[in-house]
């Protein structure tokens, strides 16, 4: 008889790091195949349509990028907090607050030149997100209040706040009863690439990723964050001001999530409205985790997720409901989570008696 044992891996080869996620995705695709066939769909055609919808044409590719931009930013935002083992799951709320503040500026100073207005909106978005992330940061830094819970709770407060605005004081009288703010002036539109909807946000996301990489790996402050993330005790022993860094990191993390909101309203919707984010803040967490907090990997994983989202819209035209896309998405995640296990452990068969 053979016994099955799990043995923790000490050091991982590149091979394991690469092959395991690929196997996970292959298995998820296989699962989806079975599921689609079982539910009476043509799996091959569906996948082809999905792929085509995501990257099949220049336009589709650009739409994928459009979806990937907020995921990149949201993923980068939370990844910084995660580096310090601060579980900021409030990216969604911080995003909404950023969108709110940026919209406020856009609506109030519509005739300002774009050169001034856009940076101002960016700053406002950052500041509002920073405050929304900073509150849990302060609570955590001074009183050890669990930031996972406070950030999660504040998401709802922010979403309700934006709903209040678009249903109430900011509602556009010309919107025929829809909960929308007035459309921004053209000065508040983020520049786009050619005729696509791909906007300046892509450049901003890439710049932030590069900055993160440099800061974390090459600067004194990045060193402090890495040390604090591994052990707060060691950080205190090193004379690092942990309290200040917790607040700072939560401010920046929230701020970047706020920028995500600014970029969505300024680059895509051009007005404040309900549901500006279909959960980018949450998906950002998944993106950051899958990318193992590596800034460049976040850009890549966000792109893959964008493809999954856009591809999902694509198959709706085939009469396949969006629910199936969600099921496939969930399955991909489950398989990747399961893959994590095989990355950390080896399964050993030993001859037992």
């Amino acid at each position, binding site marked *: 008889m053979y016994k099955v044992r799990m043995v*923790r891996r000490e050091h991982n080869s590149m091979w394991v790091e690469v092959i395991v996620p690929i196997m996970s995705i292959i298995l998820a695709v296989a699962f989806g195949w079975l599921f689609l066939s079982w*539910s009476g769909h043509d799996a091959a055609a569906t996948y082809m349509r999905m792929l085509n919808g995501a990257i099949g044409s220049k336009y589709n590719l650009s739409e994928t990028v459009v979806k990937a931009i907020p995921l990149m930013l949201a993923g980068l935002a939370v990844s910084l907090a995660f580096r310090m083992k601060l*579980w900021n*799951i409030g990216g969604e709320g911080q995003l909404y607050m950023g969108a709110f503040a940026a919209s406020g500026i856009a609506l109030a100073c519509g005739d300002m030149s774009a050169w001034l207005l856009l940076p101002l909106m960016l700053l406002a978005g950052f500041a509002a997100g920073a405050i929304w992330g900073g509150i849990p940061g302060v*609570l955590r830094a001074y*009183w*050890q*209040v*669990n930031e*996972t*819970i*406070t950030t*999660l*709770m*504040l998401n*709802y*407060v922010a979403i*309700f*706040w934006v*709903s*209040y605005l678009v*249903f*109430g004081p900011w509602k556009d009288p010309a919107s025929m009863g829809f909960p929308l703010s007035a459309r921004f002036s053209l000065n508040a539109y983020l520049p786009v690439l050619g005729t696509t909807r791909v906007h300046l946000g892509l450049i901003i996301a890439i710049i932030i990723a590069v900055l993160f990489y440099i800061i974390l790996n090459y600067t004194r402050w990045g060193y402090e964050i890495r040390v604090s993330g591994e052990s707060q005790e060691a950080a205190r022993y090193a004379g690092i001001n942990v309290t200040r860094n917790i607040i700072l990191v939560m401010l920046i993390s929230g701020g970047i999530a706020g920028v995500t909101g600014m970029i969505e309203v300024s680059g895509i919707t051009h007005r404040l409205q309900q549901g500006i984010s279909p959960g980018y803040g*949450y998906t950002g*967490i*998944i993106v950051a*985790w899958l990318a193992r907090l590596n800034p460049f990997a976040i850009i890549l994983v966000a792109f893959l997720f964008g493809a999954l989202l856009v591809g999902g819209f694509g198959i709706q035209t085939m009469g396949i*409901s*969006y*629910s*199936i*896309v*969600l*099921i*496939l*998405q*969930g*399955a991909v*995640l*489950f398989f990747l*989570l*399961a893959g*994590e*296990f095989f990355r*950390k452990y080896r399964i050993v068969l030993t001859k037992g008696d």
Partner: protein
Amino acid sequence: MELSALVPFLAAAIVAGTPILFAAVGEVMAERSGILNLGVEGMMLVGAVMGFMITIVTGNHWTGIIAAMAGGGLMALIHAFITVTLKGNQVVSGLALTIFGTGVSGFLGKSYQGMPTADPFTPCVVPLLSDIPVLGPILFKQDVLVYISIILALGFWFLLYRTSWGLTIRSAGENPAAADAVGISVSRVRYLCTIIGGIMAGLGGAYLSLAYVPSWQENLTAGRGWIAVALVIFALWNPLRAIAGAYLFGGVEALAFRLQTAGIQISSFFLSMLPYLLTILVLVLVTVRLRQEAGAPLALGVPYDREER
């Protein structure tokens, strides 16, 4: 508010609080054993749609309830497998479960959208007790699931704090190594409690589709799963306090709804923020006062690996 208006309002608060009470008590059980499951929303949705479909098919709401429990429990089983057996990240797995559950419920319920329930739960009037002025119509003219939810909350409280099983469950969430050392199977306890959490979330969902609404539409839960997660913290991981909290949160929902129908839409958004703000407040107060993690199980969210050295 006039008494005549207050009574139906309070009765409505209880009804609105019941689905989150089911789900929150279940989540208390899971978290007490050390497993954080952020997939409550997804499990509720699957419970809601399963309960609804099976009730339509069989014409009997009790078979629907059983189906809802099975649906929620199966969803939780996925989470348990990933987080207990595979020691996966609990936050990510919970989020994935919500996405998955939203998809599954939408897929299953597609052809049932907007249909009326075949056999909804209706209020049952408790003889004598319901004649008590004020209290009678609030407490004793509710449907049977309301009573079941209270009984289950009381029962799980008793289980947790007055029985050896409760001791076992709490030890798995506080110090799994200690539990393991006395021969308790931490994995088994965590599996069981996570699945109980799913069953209860399924019940909460079924309450929506079979009693509260009672109908099925996509995303029927509309964020109540997340309110249940908040309620667990608000109740400081105690099923008894969850009863009070559920009706408070239910009252907020009922009030918001009333204001909305009265055309005072704006302030209803501020009301809806209340449960979340209150939860933060409670958390801050308790943390500051106790100078620790506010009664949260110490090993919450941490996978247990015996041979980790």
